[in-house]
């Protein structure tokens, strides 16, 4: 469970470029819920996920995970609780290391890293089994550098890596945005499967209204650093893309949304 209470984040405080990116966000996400997050460019979505992961520290308000106050925890410490997949496949993996080394790195998340071999025989076998489940034939390429994989393959492996250490929270920041539609579809399907199998509490940022409604149990809209829409259950089931777009437009003060190519579909 994630409990966020009135968090504020300001970038570049006291400079001409000061940006109040989060302006009092409250959100409680029960265990196992899959939340999709939408909002226009600069709404604060990435900042919000960053605040959950520890990349940005909230200056006021509090964040608790499973009842533990993590507001002041830095990223490495929170990593035992939170797994992430980034938008840019390059950011989320070590391209110069092999696939199995990347997996070993992820498998040790939240554990003390000692002087034992990172890749022992039993671990290699385990990685091979797990990566075979992706159905991409990568089980024969464990010694290849991560950088040799395509963007889609890398996001698939990143998703798998997120499950290796048994953390209960998964943060996805537009993790299919850099992929072609077919591959994006595949990675989204994989996301759904992995979230269900591991009963992960998930936040997924997307610019696609279609995805926002098709995936997950609840949809949240951020605008100018605040949550302006929060739908789930019946209400959400009754929504379709045009509805959501209309709601979106209202929040943006009636701007002509058809200009915003990012919001279509």
């Amino acid at each position: 469970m994630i409990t966020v209470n009135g968090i504020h984040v300001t970038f570049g405080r006291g400079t001409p470029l000061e940006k109040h990116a989060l302006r009092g966000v409250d959100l409680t996400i029960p265990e196992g819920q899959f939340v999709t997050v939408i909002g226009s460019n600069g709404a604060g979505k990435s900042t919000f996920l960053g605040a959950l992961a520890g990349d940005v520290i909230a200056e006021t308000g509090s964040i608790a995970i499973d009842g533990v106050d993590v507001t002041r925890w830095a990223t490495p410490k929170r990593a035992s609780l939170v797994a992430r997949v980034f938008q840019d496949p390059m950011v989320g993996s070590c391209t110069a290391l092999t696939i199995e080394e990347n997996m070993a790195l992820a498998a040790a998340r939240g554990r003390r890293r000692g002087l034992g071999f990172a890749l022992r025989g039993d671990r290699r076998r385990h990685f091979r089994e797990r990566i075979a489940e992706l159905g991409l034939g990568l089980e024969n390429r464990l010694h290849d550098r991560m950088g040799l994989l395509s963007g889609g393959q890398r996001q698939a492996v990143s998703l798998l890596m997120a499950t290796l250490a048994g953390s209960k929270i998964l943060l996805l920041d537009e993790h299919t945005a850099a992929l072609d539609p077919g591959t994006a579809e595949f990675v989204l399907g994989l996301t759904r499967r992995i979230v269900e199998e591991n009963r992960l509490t998930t936040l997924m940022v997307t610019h696609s209204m279609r995805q926002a409604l098709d995936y997950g149990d609840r949809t949240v809209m951020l605008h100018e650093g605040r949550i302006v829409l929060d739908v789930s259950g019946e209400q959400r089931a009754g929504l379709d893309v045009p509805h959501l777009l209309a709601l979106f437009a209202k929040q943006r003060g009636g701007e002509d949304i058809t200009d915003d190519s990012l919001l279509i579909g």
Partner: protein
Amino acid sequence: MSEIAFFGAVEIGLVYALVALGVYLSFRVLDFPDLTVDGSFPLGAAVCATLLVAGVNPWIASLVAALAGSMAGLVTATLNVRFKILHLLASILTMIALFSVNLRVMGRPNVALLMQDTVLTPFYGLGLPDHVVRPLVVLVVVVVVVLLLARFLNSEFGLAMRATGVNARMARAQGVETDFHIYAGMALSNGLCALAGALFAQTNGFADVTTGIGTIVVGLAAVIVGETVLPARAMLWALVGCVVGSILYRLAVQLALSADAIGLQASDLNLVTAVLVAVALILPRMRLKAASKKREAVR
């Protein structure tokens, strides 16, 4: 090249192989361009020589020298990590400071080791000529260091250190305390360079504050030569490449110096090395450019 000159080149190549390994750790593994080396190498020599003169056991003196180098690495890492000074500048500050420190440690610009026992002394009387004994002993040290270092870099801790250098953001997201790994890596790197300095003092019979000048460039040259002749991804082979690179580099230098036709003298060494490293840094970029031009042409 005479036999003595050959063994001499191998010996100095092996001593500087430890520098190459240290430079590999900072430049390649941590992606931390570190010039502290120019100070930590003579620091190792200074500490070791001073302790030997004071009658300390040579192995202990070498170990203390390595620890002193680690401290220097920690200073640079602290300036960078804790106080956000750019890594190059941070390392230059430490390097300059070490010049004074080294003078203080020795109390004078150089110390001669004439009668003192060194790590080599017990092996001199075993029937092999001295100029063969020296590289052999250093070789044993280098082999042990390579094996331990490869083992370390393949451990969970070492893997996290490599990830820190490759992609710090990802490493942190995987729970790696990247700052701590930078401290550890820099301490290890400069510890190795100081150990090289300690062996240098013992094989050459002196320590001098000026021996550090250009150490970093020599170390880099060795790493680059190694990567060229032994392009390997497995950790062990990459480290072996550093050692091979260091020896080949010294042999090439020796060859150039002994060929009268070229007319080089020992003092030209730094210039030659700098040119070599510059070319090695420029070449891959030129190759990339040529490749992209070709691709455009195809299109």
